[in-house]
């Protein structure tokens, strides 16, 4: 794991994200703050502690090639349902050097555990990842 936890404050919100698997799939309803979190991580990655964060979204150029060049990174992919093809999913499965947080609903072709499925939960401005109840 690159990061077991990511903690930061972004007033009025306080984020405490704990990861249980090398691949985390963040799903749930629309408008729960996934893209907002992605935008916060764009700032957070400028800190030395979080330099391993690597971000991809639908605006990323040459996504597939750049994904495969990553080593020892905490890779966050917004719009992952649009971006990931079968080859990318296979790469993620066999890639042990990187950790992934995917904002995606489609888990087809990914090797996941029950700890992979998470929902972004906000209560009283405290944001965390909660396990999604799924059958694996």
């Amino acid at each position, binding site marked *: 794991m690159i990061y077991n936890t990511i903690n930061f404050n972004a007033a009025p919100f306080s984020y405490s994200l704990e990861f249980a698997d090398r691949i985390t799939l963040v799903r749930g309803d*629309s*408008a729960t703050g996934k893209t907002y979190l992605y935008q916060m991580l764009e700032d957070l990655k400028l800190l030395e502690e979080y330099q391993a964060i690597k971000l991809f979204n639908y605006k990323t150029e040459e996504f597939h090639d750049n994904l495969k060049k990553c080593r020892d990174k905490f890779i966050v992919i917004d719009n992952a349902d649009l971006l990931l093809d079968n080859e990318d999913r296979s790469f993620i499965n066999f890639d042990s050097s990187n950790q992934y947080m995917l904002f995606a609903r489609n888990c087809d072709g990914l090797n996941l555990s029950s700890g992979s499925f998470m929902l972004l939960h906000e209560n009283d401005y405290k944001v965390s990842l909660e396990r999604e109840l799924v059958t694996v």
Partner: protein
Amino acid sequence: MIYLYTNKQDSGKWILQNDWYFNLYTSNEGFTEEDEKLIWQIDHAKLNRDKHIETKYGLGTIRNLSSGCKTILNVMKNPGKVVNADECGQNVLDILFSMKGISLYMTRPERIHIKEDVEICFNDVDIVVGSKGYEHWWSREYERRNMDDL
């Protein structure tokens, strides 16, 4: 009738990237009271006259709406286009499946509350009714994909 397509087509009549399409095109259109209500329902965002929004995340523009909200607005503002619904959560899909005469692209089933009298046409071929018809169609589709090793 709701028209569902499960195989991707690169066509000008299709909206595959909802954020991109909304930011460049749909956001420039006028928004009605009905749109404002939907924006509030999904994003809890208050839309101002100048297309700024107020949410719990702060002030922004209409381009800061969620992807799900942008998807539903793309559907409403672009009748006749097939809109990608793969990024939508259940809260948005429930609303989409209560509409009529819309066309969506979906690559996999999602849990959706579908009324029993809703007619769904898959790929311009199969017409099913209600949630049972929807689930039955996807079960058969997954059997077909397994047989074809997809």
